[in-house]
């Protein structure tokens, strides 16, 4: 559901069914009793709130995914043998690595778009 996009992500435990029953028609029709009415009118804004919260959690998950990916690459690039603590040189390397990798991604995306244009797509 979160579309991690990485095959190495383990499948989360069976996700709760977020696509809960869409129940607009009947509950509105029955909204004569006050409790039903309260429920269906406040539900709409609660839904939006819920959507917002779930979206935020998804973004958080994607953020973590990215960090995992960067760390994977930059660890290989910057660290040869594990030591008892991080030295300055290694720290600088890692920070540079993250930024250069992002720069590279941007550059490749741009150039790739150009290449596709020149070749008239696939």
């Amino acid at each position: 559901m979160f579309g991690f996009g990485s095959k190495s992500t383990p499948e989360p435990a069976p996700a709760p069914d977020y696509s809960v029953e869409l129940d607009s028609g009947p509950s509105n029709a029955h909204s004569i009793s006050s409790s039903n009415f309260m429920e269906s009118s406040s539900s709409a804004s609660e839904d939006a709130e819920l959507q917002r919260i779930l979206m935020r959690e998804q973004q958080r998950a994607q953020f973590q995914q990215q960090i995992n990916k960067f760390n994977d690459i930059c660890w290989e690039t910057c660290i040869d043998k594990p030591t008892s603590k991080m030295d300055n040189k290694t720290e600088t390397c890692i920070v540079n690595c993250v930024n250069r990798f992002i720069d590279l991604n941007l550059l490749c995306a741009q150039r790739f778009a150009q290449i596709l244009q020149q070749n008239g797509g696939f």
Partner: protein
Amino acid sequence: MDSPPSTGRLTGAQREELIEQVKQQVAIATAQELLTKISEKCFKKCIAKPSSSLDSSEQKCIAMCMDRYMDSWNLVSKAYSSRIQKESMR
């Protein structure tokens, strides 16, 4: 005009629980992936010639490796956040 779908069947408590479950699952998945990575990386760095057991130097290396990998993770997290902030201010 269509009114937005109503999830009238979820109570407040159920919403809370749903959100908690989502958070938990994300945390678990993240932790699992991290552990998998750490095991892989540290095996490569520390176990040059697999023998019949993990000797003390290998164990020491593994402990350091894990600590450094987590240090690196934190560093990357900070660097990435900064970069995102920078980009968003352009």
